[in-house]
């Protein structure tokens, strides 16, 4: 140990700083924009980019708690079904005469409950993995949504409700503002609080965390409940933008969301990753889709590109020297 008063250096050279995965993402992000701008003269129009964010940000709300869950070393694949169930119940209750304000509250409550059930099952039955538990509830929640609406769509929401998905505040989409605010809050909680530190601890070594007096059950419950709640937030914005909802809504969102988090540098093995990476990845994938859509690249090709990008993202750190440096920094970075 160094002499008194010297903590020893936490080596953070310029090189190290730029070797972080987030810079790689920023680079890809700029590249995507460049290619898009080159392909389509319409791309670099701020107004249309602004409006494009409205179309891909709805699912991004789930990315925020998904980062928490992945850092815990868990996974939640039931979130898309939670979106469907909470929005379907909201629409159904509204159509049965409940005031929209209350329907929204119920929507959020249903989402939180769905998430809480996942957490409860995981805490109660420790031998079950989160993939299995949330696979079960994924099918279950979607099933209930179908029972309620029977493959119909429901909507005719009041005029003001469309503001969520379509409104602007000072020229900036409302949804973008809400997302940025929530992302900042989630980021601060993850990196600046004891709660965040405990998440990293649990994902790195659950047993040692328990022995250190961390209330692991409570944290698991909170995080999964949060995921359900944020899925309900997605449900609100989605229903608002579409003007209606149906049981098969948000199909496949769970994998999109996990893909964004992983592309953002969050490890599915737990304990590693940062919020900023995931947020960059949200915009990266969103704008990539939008840009390539502008030049009429078919949706199927888009899937191929995004899939390749994801594999690239998880492989690059292993191939280059990037991994050890970032992994080391990311390990305890909160």
């Amino acid at each position, binding site marked *: *140990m*160094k002499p*008194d008063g010297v*903590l*020893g*250096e*936490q080596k953070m050279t310029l090189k190290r700083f730029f070797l972080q995965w987030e810079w790689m993402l920023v680079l890809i992000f700029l590249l995507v924009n460049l290619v898009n701008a080159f392909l389509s003269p319409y791309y670099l129009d701020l107004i249309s980019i602004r409006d494009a964010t409205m179309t891909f940000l709805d699912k991004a709300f789930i990315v925020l708690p998904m980062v928490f869950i992945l850092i815990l070393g868990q996974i939640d694949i039931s979130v898309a079904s939670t979106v469907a169930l909470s929005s379907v119940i909201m629409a159904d209750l509204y159509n049965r005469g409940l005031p929209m304000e209350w329907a929204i509250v119920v929507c959020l409550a249903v989402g939180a409950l769905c998430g809480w059930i996942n957490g409860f099952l995981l805490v109660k039955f420790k031998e079950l993995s989160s993939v299995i538990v949330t696979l079960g509830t994924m099918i279950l929640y979607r099933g209930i949504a179908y029972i309620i609406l029977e493959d119909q769509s429901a909507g005719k929401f009041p005029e003001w409700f469309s503001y969520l998905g379509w409104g602007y505040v000072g020229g900036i989409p409302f949804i973008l503002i809400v997302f940025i605010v929530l992302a900042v809050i989630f980021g601060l909680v993850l990196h*600046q*609080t*004891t*709660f965040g*530190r*405990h998440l990293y*601890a649990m994902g*790195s*070594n659950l*047993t*040692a*965390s*328990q*022995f*250190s*007096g*961390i*209330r692991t059950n409570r944290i698991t419950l909170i995080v999964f409940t949060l995921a359900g709640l944020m899925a309900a937030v997605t449900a609100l914005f989605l229903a608002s933008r579409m003007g209606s909802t149906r049981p098969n809504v948000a199909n496949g969102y769970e994998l999109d969301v996990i893909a964004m988090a992983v592309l953002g540098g969050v490890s599915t093995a737990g*304990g590693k990753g940062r919020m900023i990476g995931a947020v960059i990845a949200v915009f990266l994938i969103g704008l990539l889709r939008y840009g390539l859509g502008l030049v009429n690249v078919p949706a199927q090709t888009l899937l191929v590109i995004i899939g390749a990008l994801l594999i690239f993202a998880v492989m690059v750190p292993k191939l280059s020297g990037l991994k050890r440096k970032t992994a*080391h920094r990311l*390990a*305890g970075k909160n």
Partner: protein
Amino acid sequence: MAEYLLELREITKTFPGVKALDSVQFKLKPGEIHALMGENGAGKSTFIKVITGVHAPDAGEILFNGEKVELKHPRDAQKLGIAAIYQHVTCYPDLSVTENIFMGHELLAKRTKRILWKEMHAEAKKWLKELGADFDPRTQMGSLSVAQQQIVEISKALSMDAKIIIMDEPTAALTQRESEELYKIAERLRDKGVSIIFITHRFEDMYRLASRVTVFRDSRYIGTWKIDEISHDDLIVAMVGREVSQLFPEKKASKGEELLRVEGLGKNGYFADVSFTLHRGEILGLTGLVGAGRSELCQAIYGISPYDRGKLFLRGKETRIQNPLQAIGSGIGYLPEDRQKQGLILEWGIDRNITLPVLHKFSNKGWLNRKQEQKMAKNLADKLLVKANSIFASAASLSGGNQQKIVVAKLLAADLDILILDEPTKGVDVGAKSAIYEIIHDLAAQGYGIILVSSEMPEVIGMSDRILVMRSGRLSAILDSDGVTQEMILQAAMGTHAVDQPLRQRA
């Protein structure tokens, strides 16, 4: 036949930034048990990896039966009949004993390549019997004890016609009685002509088994001696490089008021009817065979898996501990037995590890103050003389002794007065051991009440004021450490009295 079955000359192995072996030599005679000793980090592990073909040396040569060989791959070593048995058995816990023994060299029918189960089971049974084990080879590996698993591993080595068996700290996880069994097996193997390299921290193992001993220190070869030609003290000097004047320091603390009292504590299936008291400044030894319920008792007091019967009094007040957080809040700390799995987050820095249990101390409504945190970690690390480049060095990069100091620092970070130390010197070398003993005594002198759980008799006797002995989940004796002998403890630990009539004696 050459004089030496295996001879290593001037072996050097460098990893980025570290010289793990520095022109080391080693000579193994046929049919001998050769102890290899040295502190953690002396280069023993790298040495094994060179012999077993995991790492190729950068320089030097290896002679097998007088002929020069190159071990580039574990397969090369296997072909020569070199096998290693590790402390933590590397096996397939879900497969049967037979499958574990024959993994990679199954007996197959000549034409159809069908697996010959019957023959394999019979063969496995034969090997086990040869080693004095009588369990069924169809048993699932994971259901066996560590000692039994080691026997399976040895059977596997024999089934592959091993001529050299390397045992890496095989007795570390074994009880006294199991170690004795292992000694017998080793002797039987020796008599059959197998050479054994026995790596250990326990002098007991060495004196009991080995005919010669080689000592490494700081990646260098120090010397090889016949066991009866070197004194115990000289051996320690060879290992540590200086004299460890006294392994167990003088007692400094005096007994204060009562801190902890348990009455009739019990947990179904683990322990029952445990009563004792712990005073300020006292070191209470807790010993017994592995499986006697020591760790379970401690973890119940710490709230990991709560007790279901009996009463617990803290400073005279009855308290019920439900979880570790509550235990820490009530002043009870626990140093777990497995520091890597239960005590540390290996990829984290020293600072974050130390502060993990007490983050609330430098946070305001949950927001962390990193400066304060690092200051506290730095202070504690300095106090315990942790050797590291900085407090941001990862726990994984530290030696065993320094890792243990970090776990101790975690306890000191919290405001505790009762410390339960579960095997605090397990797997640490002699030098670090005496440092940890020193720390424990200092803590007692500062007014901590300490429960020291240990399987090592000399440690229990040398450190404790009183000694609790457990047998089959019950307290079989509370002994005063003055004048107590290993025999007295062993008798209480193994005992002849029926389990349901616990022996209570006060010396």
